[in-house]
């Protein structure tokens, strides 16, 4: 099993979710996160004083899939989340040791 961990622009979440549903992904966990990469932050103004916002709002999606599905999952996310502009985000794939469905005690790929 693999953990696909994607950091994307928040407004792309809906499109990514639909793209994943289209390839048969049945569940995911999303988190509101903040961060920066090469995009860096941007400048804002509050009551006359400028300040730099280093951490920009992003959404992180976490999905655990069968080894065989990791590649097409990554491809689907990349395709749906791409705007071509700086700050589109990144996708990581990590190995997963075990998975257990709490309700039924199923383990392994059965639990996904």
């Amino acid at each position, binding site marked *: 099993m693999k953990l696909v961990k994607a950091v994307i622009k928040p407004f792309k979440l809906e499109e990514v979710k639909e793209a994943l549903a289209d390839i048969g992904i049945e569940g995911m966990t999303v988190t509101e996160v903040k961060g920066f990469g090469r995009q860096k932050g941007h400048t804002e*103004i*509050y*009551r*006359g*004083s400028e*300040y730099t916002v280093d951490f920009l709002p992003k959404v992180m999606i976490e999905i655990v899939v069968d080894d065989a599905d990791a590649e097409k999952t990554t491809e689907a996310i990349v395709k749906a989340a791409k705007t071509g502009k700086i700050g589109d985000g990144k996708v990581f794939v990590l190995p997963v040791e075990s998975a257990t469905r709490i309700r039924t005690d199923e383990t392994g790929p059965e639990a996904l």
Partner: protein
Amino acid sequence: MKIKKYLLALLLSSSAFLMAGSLGAQEMPEEVAAASEAVEIVTSAAAAVASGDEMAGDYLALLENQGEYAYAFDFFTTSMLWTVIAAALVFIMHLGFATLEAGLTQSKNTVNILFKNVFIIAIGIISYAVIGFNTHYPGDFNGWFSIGSMIGDLNADGGDTFGYGGVGLAMTGYGDFIFQAMFAATAATIVSGAVAERVKLGSFMIFATLLVGLAYPVVGSWHWGGGWLGGLNGGNGFKDFAGSAVVHAFGGFAALACVMLLGPRAGKYVDGKIRPILGHSMPLATIGVFLLFLGWFGFNGGSVLSADPTYVGLVFTTTALAACAGALASIFVSWTFLKKPDLSMALNGILAGLVGITANADIVSPMGSIIIGLIAGVIVVFSIIFFDKIKIDDPVGAISVHGVCGIWGILACALFDVTDSGFTLVGQLIGVLAVGAAAFIFSIIVFGILKATIGIRVSPEEEAEGLDIGEHGQEAYPDFAPSSR
């Protein structure tokens, strides 16, 4: 079919009001005399009851109780009703202050801000009954200083009729009290926003109690209590219609003194540079300003002190125009000079216009009120930036909005008066500086003593963690991972 005419009020009118010619009283009797040929005249409560109309009997009995004032009872009732509605509108301003201050500060200090606002309205009204009202309106006194006592039965001795204040103050004693009591807490609320996010709760509560219970009514008596400010402007009297000086500048300068003693919030100035500390909720701040705008119709409109149709509509109009002009000016200025249209500045612009018009709402033209608001809206933006630069850290802009624009409103009385009442710039300036200086000196002394004894500032650790946990052991937004039992 018989037509009954209930004429008691007119018959009773032969005294004061007819003589004075108030309320168009003179024309009425002829008309009614002409009409009375065709109708049966019922002139007393007893006669109305005898003729079978108990409701009319009740009404006539109410009129009879007004004695010589029965003629104008309807005007009195309307005025009194407007006064208590205005008092309720001023009450809503305290919710406005609470949400504005909460919105412009960090979420970790929200409970603390709201708590202070709850305390201020409570202590404000209680202390006004115990000592404030009779200090504020001492009757005959030396013009400078007099300490009052607890209010008694304000309905006694004609306090429930025109006997209380005549046509110019057409309300009962209790109506007057509750309207003025709502004002009193405002001065301390202004300070609350300026010292937010670092002041020690207990010290603030002691200070606010003394400010609202003692300093505010003593200084207020100089003007509204018939004190020495009445001798300004060559005997024409100091002009401060609803309190640009005695409420707003008073609160603003008290806030300035407190902030100077308290110092800026940790992290506001790093290596000599301003690091803005963002307010946590612009929606809350906006709700607050709109509530203040609404309440200001009571603050200014109620300060007519009757339902005098000449003034109530004018005051509503000038108040609204100045507020809107203040908003437009601060939007324009912040967009031009700060590169972005800053919402918090636009909100402060509305308040600046309102404070600016408060002193003069009944003596300026609509055009005058727009200019007053525009200038206030410009002043407030530069004033906020100025105080930020000199390290006077005022999270909500209270010193600029209430202190600086309060002075502007007072001066505007001399510049935009269309009633030719003889208000001079010098006289107005003396009055507002005296009020501001009194508030400033009182606050420096009292807050200074508190600083030297029990301390006025929370520890750096508590400030970093937030006053909600530190002072109250509570969170405003505890939804995520609530603590177990």
